[in-house]
């Protein structure tokens, strides 16, 4: 296993360095410039993500970098495989969209520095850099630092408006996140104590089926589940994601919450591939199913639009964890070349776009109406048709209707469930889709209804921002044109590549 850098590996360094240096520059130049710096970073970061994707696709191999020329186990390595790259490109595209949307949300004044714009435009690139660090990190402690970076960048976004309820939500989010981090760190400590390294590739070679490894992986997984708000650790998410300003909610629900899920994949499929755990994977699946059912049912009962969307996130995260019992197949020996693997990753990506679009459109609606109570949304369909259309497109992906990325993802999970004889997950997916249809139509029915009195709009919503929201929603729809079989790109870097899968 070569540990030296591959050509183009420096791009991995840039993926982290560029956004973080943007943060430093924003802080020193002050509020007026922070927005401009972020807007310059967005195309640059997107270019880097696409370049990494191009390099990985053209060489069909993992992109690697040993920082400081120190190879693991002494040093730290960055590694970008197909999965990392897909997540990085998703992050880059989505953050560009959210950044363009947020230009109208936090206008930076010319004369002085205001709190909210500076904090938002400084923390958004920080979240981006932290996400990239999570996606390419090859060392468990480096990933711990990246997770802390992500937490500290995300938590203040929740309490940006300074109200008591968002402050409480931010504190609860922080406490859950810290709980998750300390469990993760404890697991990493045990792995180092047993095998003398924290590098993921080296660990996969050393790890044995012994109690210390089980304990370590269990602790780390539990910590990451708390960070990912999987049932029963989901209570912190709805108030936090609903209380944040709309672009921040989009980042939190779309991207930040996917990072711990990504790390659970790394733990289970990269460190432990030789010791698959079908029983433990069933537990993850059960928690995922509970998340889908509980999240969807509670979403149906919400009074406020943003809380409904946040509970929908709790449900959709459950789908992600259905991937584990379906993609671990000990008899085949190679868990990843299955439909379920592609389905799970596609669910993460399409949910990111769909949920971001829904939160952003909810934000525009709230700006226009001055509130986000679902019962009083009548007439907004006429006033902001483009916005409601974007919301509907996002909902289509959430429900799993064609054409949309959500449909492809859920279809793959269904196919995998049926083909493997684990039909109970298929039932869960179908019920979840019905419930999602329920809460999406709840909102759309209200929004498209005619209002009795003429609607007084508090603020005019710019066409540009509405167009950005539709564009983001369309990304979720465009993913629906991905072919309905396991993706070759996502398998890059997985041992034993086989693209057959299930038809």
């Amino acid at each position, binding site marked *: 296993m070569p540990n030296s850098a591959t050509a183009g590996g420096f791009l991995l360094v840039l993926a982290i360095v560029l956004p973080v240096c943007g943060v430093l520059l924003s802080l020193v130049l002050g509020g007026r410039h922070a927005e401009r710096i972020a807007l310059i970073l967005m195309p640059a970061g997107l270019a880097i993500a696409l370049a990494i994707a191009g390099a990985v696709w053209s060489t069909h191999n993992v992109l690697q970098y040993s920082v400081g020329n120190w190879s693991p186990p002494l040093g730290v390595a960055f590694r970008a495989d197909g999965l990392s790259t897909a997540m990085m490109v998703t992050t880059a595209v989505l953050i560009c969209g959210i950044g363009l949307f947020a230009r109208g949300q936090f206008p930076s004044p010319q004369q002085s520095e205001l709190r909210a714009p500076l904090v938002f435009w400084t923390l958004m690139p920080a979240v981006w850099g932290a996400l990239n660090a999570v996606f390419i990190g090859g060392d468990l402690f480096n990933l711990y630092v990246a997770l802390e970076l992500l937490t500290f960048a995300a938590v203040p976004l929740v309490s940006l408006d300074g109200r008591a309820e968002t402050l409480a939500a931010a*504190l609860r989010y922080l406490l859950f996140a810290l709980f998750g981090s300390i469990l993760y*760190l*404890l697991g990493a400590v045990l792995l*180092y104590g047993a095998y003398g390294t924290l590098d993921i590739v080296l660990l996969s070679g050393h790890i044995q089926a012994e109690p210390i490894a089980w304990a370590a992986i269990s602790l780390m997984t539990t910590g990451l589940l708390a960070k990912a708000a999987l049932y029963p650790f989901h209570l912190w998410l709805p108030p936090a994601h609903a209380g944040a300003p709309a672009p921040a909610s989009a980042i939190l629900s779309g991207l930040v919450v996917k990072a711990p899920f990504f790390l659970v994949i790394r733990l289970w499929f990269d460190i432990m591939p030789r010791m698959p755990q079908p029983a433990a994977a069933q537990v993850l699946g059960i928690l995922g199913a509970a998340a889908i059912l509980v999240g969807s049912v509670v979403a149906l009962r919400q009074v406020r639009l943003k809380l409904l969307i946040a509970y929908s996130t709790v449900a959709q995260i459950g789908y992600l964890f259905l991937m584990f019992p379906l993609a671990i197949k000990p008899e085949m020996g190679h868990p990843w070349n299955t439909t379920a693997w592609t389905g799970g990753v596609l669910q993460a990506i399409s949910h990111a776009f769909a949920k971001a679009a829904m939160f952003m459109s909810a934000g525009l609606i709230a700006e226009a109406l001055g509130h986000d109570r679902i019962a009083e949304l009548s007439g907004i369909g006429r006033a902001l048709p483009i916005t409601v259309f974007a919301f509907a497109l996002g909902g289509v992906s959430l429900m799993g209707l064609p054409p949309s990325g959500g449909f492809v993802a859920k279809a793959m999970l269904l196919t995998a469930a049926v083909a493997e004889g684990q039909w109970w997950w298929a039932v869960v997916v179908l019920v979840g889709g019905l419930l999602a249809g329920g809460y999406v139509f709840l909102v759309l029915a209200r929004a498209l209804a005619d209002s009795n009195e003429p609607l007084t709009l508090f603020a005019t919503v710019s066409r540009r921002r509405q167009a950005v929201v539709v564009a983001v929603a369309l990304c979720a729809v465009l993913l629906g044109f991905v072919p309905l079989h396991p993706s070759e790109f996502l398998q890059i870097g997985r041992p034993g590549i086989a693209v057959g899968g299930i038809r």
Partner: protein
Amino acid sequence: MSDATLYGLCGAVLVGLGLFGLIVNPLPLRKILAFNLIGGGVFLLFGVVARRGAAAGLGGDPIPHALIITGIVVAFAATALAIALLLRLFRETGRATLGSDG
């Protein structure tokens, strides 16, 4: 039993104690204290791993030592942020609790 193993057991108990304090105590400030207790236990376990790795003339494996130092600094930053949130919440509401705690 070597002294490293002894402190390892001490660290294990500290993690359990801190976890208990985290679950049981309703006040956020006491939860933050409990977090720091758990953190101390985890770092102690790491330090025991380092001590057992003493070799090449060094008293302990320097990698865990460096990571513990990083961890202590990060834990302090987390405590500072949590306390700032708590104090601001107190200024807004006059209460020092989270309402329904996690």
